[in-house]
């Protein structure tokens, strides 16, 4: 048996610093642009919002604004990758993965090319723009594609490292990024390991597996639960694919119950991925916080996370329901 992982270094809970993961993406691109001349960046008329604009200013010859034409952007990125470039292509998650799904499949994943689809404004926390812009199906679309690696960083510290890791990896990568400023969870000495869950908190009553902006909420929920004497393990599953099945199997074995949290459809999302791994490795009760087969609506990111049970309180409440299942007191509610 492998040794349990160490706790990842976190910031103190009193540290209220908030940064959007898209900002970290923009900064990571600048780092990459300065150190490597094989990096090219493409955008589809949203470079101010996706934060690729700074790379465009620093390296105008290696930046290509393709206009409002996401499918074409992915195709051009694939052609550049076929010529040895490492191509970062960005738009909002809705358009980058929704409109261009077929091009990502045919022109990037089939020939296994070095295209890094880094999509911002994913999930509910895009907020007021509403359901047309709240991409809640991108993890599903990207994780079913052979050869695709799927990364969903929890905060700006992890986002920067995910982008650098994506550049190092030979092959297609999807990086899911947020518009909203969200709590910085990790301290600066955190080291992201591709394919490994980060252990944020120890506990053996249940494990909460989260990704993206819900990681901070999961930590909050764990605090709330601790006040009631419930010790929740918290795992940050920034690599959705390849999934760290060892960490999930260990959590299922040692905690006996698993709760997932994502601002995404549970169908095909993190919830599905974790449930699949639990069923295959060490069957245990699983509950899922996320979107249950519905679209979002306009509102602030905070309002929406609370409404759909993805804030600290929502996750804690679902955790308690899961513990009743674990104890055998109640059966799972049919949906």
């Amino acid at each position, binding site marked *: 048996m492998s040794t349990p992982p160490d706790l990842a270094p976190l910031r103190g809970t009193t540290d209220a610093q908030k940064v959007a993961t898209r900002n970290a993406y923009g900064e990571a691109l600048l780092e990459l642009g300065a150190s490597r001349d094989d990096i090219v960046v493409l955008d589809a008329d949203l470079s101010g919002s996706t934060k690729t604009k700074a790379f465009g200013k620093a390296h105008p010859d290696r930046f290509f604004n393709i206009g409002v034409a996401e499918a074409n952007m992915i195709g051009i990125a694939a052609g550049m990758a076929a010529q040895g470039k490492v191509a970062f292509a960005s738009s909002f998650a809705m358009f980058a993965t929704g409109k261009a799904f077929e*091009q990502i499949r045919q022109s990037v994943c089939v020939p296994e090319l070095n295209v890094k689809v880094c999509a911002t404004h994913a999930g509910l926390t895009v907020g007021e723009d509403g359901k047309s812009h709240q991409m809640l199906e991108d993890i599903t679309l990207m994780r079913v594609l052979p050869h695709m690696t799927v990364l969903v960083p929890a905060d700006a510290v992890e986002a920067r490292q995910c982008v650098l890791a994506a550049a190092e990896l030979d092959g297609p990568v999807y990086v899911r990024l947020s518009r909203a400023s969200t709590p910085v969870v990790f301290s600066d000495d955190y080291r992201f390991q591709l394919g490994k869950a980060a252990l944020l908190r120890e506990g053996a009553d249940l494990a909460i597996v989260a990704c993206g902006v819900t990681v901070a909420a999961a930590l909050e929920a764990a605090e709330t639960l601790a006040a009631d004497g419930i010790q929740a393990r918290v795992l940050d599953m920034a690599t959705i694919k390849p999934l760290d099945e060892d960490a999930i199997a260990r959590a299922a074995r040692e905690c006996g119950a698993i709760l997932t949290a994502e601002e995404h459809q549970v169908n095909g999302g993190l919830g599905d991925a974790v449930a699949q791994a639990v069923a295959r490795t060490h069957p245990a009760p699983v509950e899922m916080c996320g979107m249950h087969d519905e679209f979002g609506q306009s509102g602030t990111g905070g309002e929406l996370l609370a409404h759909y049970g993805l804030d600290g309180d929502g996750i804690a409440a679902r955790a308690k329901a899961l513990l009743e299942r674990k104890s055998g007191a109640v059966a799972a509610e049919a949906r």
Partner: protein
Amino acid sequence: MALTPEQKATIEAAALRVRRDTVRMVHAATCGHPGGPLGMADFMATLFLQHLRLDASNKGAPDRDRFVLGNGHTCAGYYSLLAQKGLVPEDELLRFRKFGSPLQGHPHRNLDLGIDFSTGSLGNSVSVAVGMALAAKLNGWDTRVYSASSDGESQEGQIWEAATAAAHHGATNLTVLVDFNNVQIDGYMRDVMDVRDLRAKYEAFGWHAVDVDGHDVEAIDAALCEARDETSRPSALICHTTIGKGVSFMENQPGWHGVAPGDDDARKALVELGVADADAVAMVAASSAT
């Protein structure tokens, strides 16, 4: 420079070989698309023999020319040309579309065989070719990127997104050869969805665009030379062809877009393509046996 009589004869012989191989390969596969490659044979042979810098000796060179077959279903003819240039083993041709063969039903990227990109889903290819062309320019390479497309593929909106971007970003080292045969899988193009004047369309998108007789190898060569010399715009050759060219019963027939000939039709087709009857019978027997 005009083609010498020897060059012209060599290209025409290669085109004839493409047509014979196409019939044999699609017959052996018992499925596939014979009409397109028969129609494209002349301009494809001109491109591959006279212009495209790709052969067994330079296939690994990063700055060599690139080719993307947008209408990937016509790959039988493409594979024949790669075999004629020594990139695809001859004995693979009759394994086209069969389990385990690198000659997939639609092209799959295989640089060892000279297959530069995976295609088959119509509409994606020009974008990829634009990316290849821009990356080559960024690297300072003297690379030309060629892509074959078609009138049917021009119904895909992404083609026009790519055409817009090619002109805007200066993919001047890109040449697209459009197979304009007026036929698509559901029938005559003018009945299904008329794409009208593609030369005028490409021109309006900022390209150097010309209409050319897609069976006149001298005219095609001249147009490819002109495209190579065009340094301010991407180029489009609208190659007007007859689908099924060279096999009388397949010419201009939508029914032969995506249907394989049986033994009798394959033999008749090979005879029309100048194969002696006894040889045609033997070829049909050989491909039936694969």
